[in-house]
């Protein structure tokens, strides 16, 4: 009886203390696993068929995946800066969600259409503080190397991306300059409205394009090494 109780107790404790039960992955490891999963999704032969519905399904799947890697709340918080406090809690959540969709609608399709076995090299990780880290990677494409640095935040023992620097250009900084200008004159509610309209347009465009079987824009296969 006592033993049973003990076992039961340990079991309960494991359930209650998720920290004790979860093995932590470092920032580099986390990103590596996630990005490789995304690449596997892109290469999945199930999506080889140029069928618009399949492409859409892959798009949605990639989007869900991306949402697990990024922390759009933190992205939004830093992209709006001091203005973040002007958003109500509901508005904050809505904005974070819209921001995710804006980026997804622009870039996922580009990646889907242009992915040709590019390789990602994971160089190193720097732990800045308990809650912050940086991971440097390089994307190899067209005989070129593009340095990409991810900045991560530790949320509930999970590393998630809050900024990406491609060739030294920070995504969050770039949006910050735009939101700053917008919110200087106008209200968060208006910004949310503008974002909604933009996303609707992008989504309709995409579905239209897929129907007509037009790719967004692709370059002919440039992976030929001329040597």
């Amino acid at each position, binding site marked *: 009886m*006592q033993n049973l*109780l*003990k076992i039961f*107790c340990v079991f*309960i*404790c494991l359930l*209650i*203390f*998720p*920290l004790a039960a979860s093995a932590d992955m470092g920032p580099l490891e986390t990103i590596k696993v996630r990005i490789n999963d995304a690449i596997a999704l892109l290469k999945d032969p199930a999506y080889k068929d140029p069928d618009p519905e399949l492409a859409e399904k892959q798009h949605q799947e990639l989007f869900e995946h991306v949402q697990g890697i990024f922390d759009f*709340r*933190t992205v939004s*918080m*830093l992209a709006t*800066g*001091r203005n*973040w406090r002007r958003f109500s809690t509901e508005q904050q959540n809505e904005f974070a969600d819209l921001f995710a969709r*804006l*980026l997804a609608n*622009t*870039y996922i399709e*580009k990646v889907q259409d*242009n992915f040709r076995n590019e390789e990602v090299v994971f160089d190193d990780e720097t732990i800045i*503080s308990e*809650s*912050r880290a940086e991971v440097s990677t390089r994307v190899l494409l*067209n*005989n070129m190397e593009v340095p990409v640095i991810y900045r991560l*935040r530790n949320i*509930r023992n999970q590393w998630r991306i809050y900024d990406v620097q491609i*060739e*030294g*250009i*920070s995504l*969050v*900084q*770039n*949006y*910050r*300059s*735009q*939101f*700053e*200008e*917008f919110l200087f004159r106008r209200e968060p509610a208006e*910004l949310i409205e*503008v*974002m909604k309209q*933009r996303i609707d347009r*992008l989504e309709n465009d995409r579905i239209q394009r897929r129907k007509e079987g037009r790719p*967004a*824009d*692709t*370059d*002919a*296969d*440039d992976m*030929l090494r*001329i*040597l």
Partner: protein
Amino acid sequence: MGFRFICILLLVTGLILQTVHAEEYWDDDDAFFAEIEAEYAAAPSQKIADPFEPFNRGMFVVNDKLYFWVLKPAATGWQKVTPSPVRTGIRNFFRNIGAPVRVTNQLLQGKGKAAAAETGKFFVNSIWGIFGLIDASQQLPSLQVPPEDLGQTLGKWGIGNGFYLVLPFFGPTTLRDGVGQVGDFFLQPTTYYTSGNPEGWAAVKATETINTTSFRLGDYEAIKDASLDPYTAVRNGYIQMRMQAIRQ
């Protein structure tokens, strides 16, 4: 008895901890924000002087139309009729003959090693790479150094951007980088090859631009789609890109 008590105690603390754990994310927001907000707010790319914004916005629209009406159709056609290796060859050729600009500025910045590597690269590509059509130096990682130009040199010497400027055809620049572009113009072999013949120079420049664009079709559209205000997005992107180039 004691054991059961401990069990209950554990359970209760666990539950309390778990609720704390769930809210930690929100609590820690303030701390995290405080830690990093200053860094983002103080980024120099957020503070670029743009006294001629109305003019620049006008020029931005002009360039945007030029891209969609002239450059994009030309580059798309070029991409369709020209096989990828040929376009890559042309790109390599133009990069290779730009060596004097890079070497001069590497020397001006006191980067002797980089200047030597760049010179070596030029000879390797000109001799083994058939006048620079092939980037033969790719096999030699030690020769791969970041490119430099006069705008970066001036930046390295502590001269600030001045103000932002959008030129027709040439696109985004700043006072400092614009001065740099004029200086670099006199170091470009193409300038002398076509000397006294503006049409010839324009034709060479157009070829280079159309060919370069054929590799980047869709990039500008994506930037435009993803931004709320493309003008501000491009301005900020340009300033960030140049800062990174100066750092290297």
